[in-house]
């Protein structure tokens, strides 16, 4: 905190419009970064909430397929269940059906991803319910809240799913996978829709003791035609689309936001400096070094950056919670790590833009101060 600080503070405090513009520029950039990141994280969270809620140590899918819900049809013979059960370290094996279903609901065509779950254990059922029951019995179905809201479905309604009459007994929470929603029925009810006997889509495996990876390796090598994925791997495969489709665009936007921030601080600090070049000349004449003068410029842009960061973070949190209240399916989740990223970005904006007026400062000729 040298002499430059007081000059920088005074300049900022007495020229608030300028400070507001540069801090506002940073705040917008920070908001863009935080909200986009928040949206991405929120969507990813939603898309994987169901998988996490199942709490399986391993997901067993057909070998040689991508393994995720959305891109592949995983077909495994039911007989694999016993083979998996006999692998060392496996405690529990539960079959799961999973198929995309399109059907008519009233006058419209709707779709969901129907999970056929074991009616006894309920493993693979919804993450939670906002109304009704969690585990569907014979002739019953649980639909997601978002699906129910979108299509006016309520408890007790009977859905005609491709010839199958299923009564809604639960409205689930956390089953919105953004582009589609999960629904849950009992495994035996679901089988006719799959149109094949003697096969299932997944096995959900709990292991006992030892790292799940090792048990998974034993399943993959020991049981023909299947691959075992840890929960992390399975989550990864289910979000590959988001990562590959959305993240690059997001990073491009982040870079644009950074550039905008740099341009706004850079421009305001540049004009501020040029306007003040006479004062910089006076300071040079009375004996201030160039370094001290750069310090004044840097502290001004640093303050703009810090203020913009705070403003942008607060506004992002407000906007995110406001949007979420209005549109529940539009989940944004701003994480500490991303706030850190925005802080680094704001610092970078301040740092880069403080180089913009280096030349005009260096060029000020102290001898000019004697000339009116």
């Amino acid at each position, binding site marked *: 905190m040298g002499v430059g600080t*007081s000059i920088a503070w*005074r300049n900022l405090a007495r020229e608030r419009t300028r400070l507001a513009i540069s801090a506002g520029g940073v705040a917008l950039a920070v908001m863009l970064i935080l909200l986009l990141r928040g949206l991405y994280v929120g969507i990813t969270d939603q898309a994987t909430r169901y998988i996490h809620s199942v709490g399986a140590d391993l997901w067993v899918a057909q070998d040689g397929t991508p393994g995720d819900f959305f891109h592949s049809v995983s077909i495994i013979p039911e007989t694999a269940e016993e083979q998996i059960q006999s692998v060392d370290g496996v405690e529990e094996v539960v079959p799961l059906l999973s198929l995309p279903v399109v059907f008519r609901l009233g006058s419209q065509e709707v779709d969901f991803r129907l999970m056929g779950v074991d009616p006894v254990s309920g493993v693979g059922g919804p993450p939670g319910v906002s109304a009704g029951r969690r585990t569907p019995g014979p002739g019953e179905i649980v639909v997601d809240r978002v699906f129910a809201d979108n299509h006016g479905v309520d408890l007790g309604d009977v859905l005609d799913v491709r010839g199958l009459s299923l009564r809604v007994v639960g409205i689930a929470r956390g089953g919105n996978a953004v582009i589609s929603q999960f629904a849950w029925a009992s495994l035996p009810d679901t089988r006719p829709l799959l149109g094949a006997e003697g096969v299932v889509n997944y096995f959900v495996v709990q292991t006992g003791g030892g790292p799940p990876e090792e048990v998974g390796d034993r399943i993959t090598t020991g049981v023909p035609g299947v691959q075992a994925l840890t929960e992390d791997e399975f989550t990864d495969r289910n979000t590959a689309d988001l990562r590959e489709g959305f993240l690059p665009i997001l990073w491009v936007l982040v870079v644009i936001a950074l550039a905008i921030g740099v341009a706004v601080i850079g421009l305001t600090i540049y004009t501020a400096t040029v306007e003040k070049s006479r*004062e910089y000349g006076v300071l040079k004449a*009375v*004996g*201030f070094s160039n370094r*001290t003068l750069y310090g004044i410029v840097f502290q001004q842009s640093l303050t703009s950056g810090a203020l913009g960061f705070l403003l942008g973070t607060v506004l992002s949190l407000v906007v995110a919670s406001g949007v979420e209240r209005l549109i529940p399916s539009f989940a944004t989740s701003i994480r500490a790590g991303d706030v850190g990223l925005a802080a680094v970005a704001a610092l970078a904006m301040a740092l880069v833009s403080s180089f913009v007026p280096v030349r005009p400062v260096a060029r000020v000729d102290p*001898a000019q101060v004697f000339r009116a």
Partner: protein
Amino acid sequence: MSARSDAALRLGSITKVYGEGEAAVTAVRDASLVVTPGQFVIVMGPSGSGKTTLLSICGALLRPTAGQVWVGGTDITALTERELPGLRLRRMGFVFQNFNLLANLTARENVRIVIEANGVRRSAADARARELLGQLRMTHRLDALPDQLSGGERQRVAIARALANDPPLILADEPTGNLDSKTGYQAMHMLELLAKEHGKTVIAVTHDHRVQDVADLMLWLEDGVLSERPPEEAELARDPVCGMVINALRAAGRRERDGEPLSFCSEICLERFDREAARYPSPE
């Protein structure tokens, strides 16, 4: 000690040429000078004669094209660019015609930052700034911004700033130029006091011929040539172009015809004369 380090300021054959080739302007020609500590020196001369240039060279703001400048015992023309700011900070104080205070800083802050720049802690610097402003009778205006101050008050803040780090040498370029005559004399007397009572060496450029009585040394600069006394005593002369009676010392320029000196009120008359000298007979 040699005579060189005894002198507060010493100029050895200073020449300053601006620009090159055809555009070259020689602002100061071969000027030499010795100023002893505590002297109050006044520099006068017509507009464009090189006063500001000379003062800038003394203040290490401008490098001479040729010659050397000693401040105290230091040859400042031998210093590097990096060493000059520190020299100006500690060894010189500047007073400008248009005050040149920082607009966003109060009177006190304007003085304080210069003390802080010399490595003094804020609280001590602040105390010294108060004290200096108090000596200049500015205690009641410590926290005023420059644009809330009168011209005379601004110049007092500027003088306090020049004294911030107690430098031995004070350089002032037309310090009274933006002040009315009463405030101007007051400012001049403050500078005089700095020399007579505080032992500062003060070099002031002014157009005001009436201050010459308070000076220890009067210097006359004309066409870049420095001399120790005006060409004539302060007498009246008639501008041959417009016929106005002016003080010869305050003439905008001079010419000579048939060994007779001619003085001009302004650049305009001088130009007219240079274009068509024959039209203007010498005044009686």
